[in-house]
């Protein structure tokens, strides 16, 4: 399969009062053309930082200390980490677009949606006339199942959360990007609106042959949309695999713990098991494997060295030295 994005050995740090926060540590990750990759992790796992680094939109306190991000699409090839600002501006949105978490904050409350779209387009110096822009926007709004005439004339507060989210998705698609990054696209929405967004994303992906990176804490979103899942813990990837491998044959104790701790509604009732302890302090990370203080499979070796991703089977990687025991269901 063809790589559209390749992240190589990426490290990102934040400066905080107490010290350096190691938000992303040594991430290697590929995104294939046309796939949906879900990056799953809890708060502080570094998933949002990783997403922001792909379009180099990190806050000023963050620094990419090491690593490369290669993008190859539309017949172009870039290394994103080394792009300067003027080239970044041509790159963002045209090649990779991001839809952010808080759909309300993305809009200026006192200007109408159409003016917001025009402003955004102008600030990215897009070579489109007003008329061309309008035609394109109308088409996209219809694609996301909104009534274009009504929406464009509205102020942000006149739209529901789900509608605003759909506007943002349409806006992200304006310049036909190859990749869309969605950061918690449905978190603030109610269940029925959430469903409509999920259906919409499936439809768009099919129609436009997009590659999608879905960043979420919610396992069920990954189960619903993803082809592949990458699980993050304390800034590193601990497991990467197909959605079925991750959910039915997890090979990392953390992934396994998450899946055993999350209830389902329509599946049959089963006993859930919680993960003991709490996520580590990113400034004072434990030695060795970062999950070992909470791990039931821990042995002495786990404390010595942090394991790298190991290939367990085709397209299935885990950062656990005891993955074979986990696969065989043995813990001794």
């Amino acid at each position: 399969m063809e790589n559209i994005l390749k992240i190589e050995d990426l490290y990102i740090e934040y400066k905080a009062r107490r010290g350096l926060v190691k938000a992303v540590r040594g991430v290697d990750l590929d995104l294939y053309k046309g796939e949906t990759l879900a990056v799953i992790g809890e708060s502080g796992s570094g998933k949002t930082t990783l997403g922001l680094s792909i379009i180099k939109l990190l806050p000023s306190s963050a620094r990419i200390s090491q690593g490369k991000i290669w993008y190859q699409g539309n017949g172009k090839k870039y290394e994103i980490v080394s792009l300067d600002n003027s080239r970044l501006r041509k790159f963002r949105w045209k090649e990779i677009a991001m839809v952010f978490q808080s759909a309300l904050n993305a809009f200026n409350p006192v200007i109408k949606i159409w003016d917001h779209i025009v402003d955004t387009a102008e600030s990215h110096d897009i070579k489109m006339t007003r008329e061309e822009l309008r035609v394109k926007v109308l088409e996209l709004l219809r694609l996301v199942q909104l009534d274009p005439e009504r929406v464009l004339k509205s102020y942000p507060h006149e739209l529901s959360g789900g509608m605003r989210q759909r506007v943002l998705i349409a806006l992200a698609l304006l310049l036909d990007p190859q990749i869309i990054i969605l950061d918690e696209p449905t978190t603030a929405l109610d269940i029925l609106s959430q469903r409509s967004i999920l259906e919409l994303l499936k439809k768009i992906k099919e129609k436009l042959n997009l590659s999608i990176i879905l960043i979420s804490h919610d396992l069920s979103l990954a189960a619903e949309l993803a082809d592949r899942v990458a699980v993050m813990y304390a800034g590193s990837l601990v497991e990467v695999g197909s959605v079925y491998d991750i959910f039915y044959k997890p090979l990392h104790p953390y992934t396994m713990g998450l899946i055993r701790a999350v209830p389902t509604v329509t599946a049959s009732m089963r006993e859930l098991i919680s993960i003991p302890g709490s996520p580590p302090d990113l400034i004072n990370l434990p030695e060795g494997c970062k999950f070992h203080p909470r791990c039931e499979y821990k042995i002495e070796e786990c404390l010595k060295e942090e394991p790298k991703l190991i290939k367990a089977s085709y397209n299935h990687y885990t950062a656990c030295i005891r993955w074979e025991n986990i696969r065989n269901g043995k813990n001794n």
Partner: protein
Amino acid sequence: MEKIIELKNISKFFTIGGGFFTPKKTLRVLENLNLSIGKGEIFCLVGESGCGKTTTGKLIAGLLKPTSGEILFYGKDIWKMGKEEFKTYRRSVQIVHQDPYSSLNPIKTVYDILSTPLLKHHIVRSNGQCEEKISELLKIVDLTPVEDFIYKYPHQLSGGQRQRVVIARALTLNPEFIVADEAVSMLDVSIRLSIIKLLLSLKKNFDMTFLFITHDLAMAKYFGWSGKIGVMYLGRLVEIGPTPKVLENPLHPYTKALLLAVPEADPEVTRSKKVMELRSLDLPSLLNLPPGCRFSNRCPFMEPGRCDKIEPNLYELEPEHYVACELYGEKV
């Protein structure tokens, strides 16, 4: 089972506006709510944001006064109680909020937070006794070793630990009833289950009664499997019944839509769901409610002339399983 809390025809309206230029408007947040909770029972109230579930929780905890209707505590209307009686009620019903960051006073230590109610209400007679009682409470909520937590400030604790302090605080006055308002939704996935298990242990060990308010159907199912569930939509209860019955055999179109819409943390289950096509994607505003059944403008089974004309009655289709939908009118 003895009824500990009973709501009779409860309505709660808020008025907004009413200045010089804005006309007064009435928000009908709750209308004609009837429910009863037995001693030692778990009652889950599910619904989307804005459906009135939090308001119901506050009414039951006596933190808000209803516009009309009665709230009975062991058969007595709480707003007609004498001072002493009301105090007993107030101390018997405690609330656990959603946000562990705003539910603890940032400038007080765990010791201060727990000792104040103990000393104020003479649960303990001396400082020595107070410390004993506090360590007992911290042990119940699994904050051990106690010395590591007792003098900490909230900002020195993780989200899960804070929520445990909040629960310990709710237990200081030996309550019989706890209103848990989205008590785990702000916590990390790996932490949620441990808090849920803590609450379940309170039910088991102290025969605690719970009103569990949540938008997360899966959590409601896991926590409230032995109890009842009430589904709310725009200020009305649309379905009530024993949890297994409601989730396995939903009757109200809204409940059905919710169960089909909710994504599940299981790829096969979630991908095999059929989506219910609603007639409108957007939740109506409380200021502009549809006539008749409040779900009628979105419901795919809507019968014109009936659903959009008459307020639905509550029908008992199975023992203890009620639904507020006129489509079942003939069956009963």
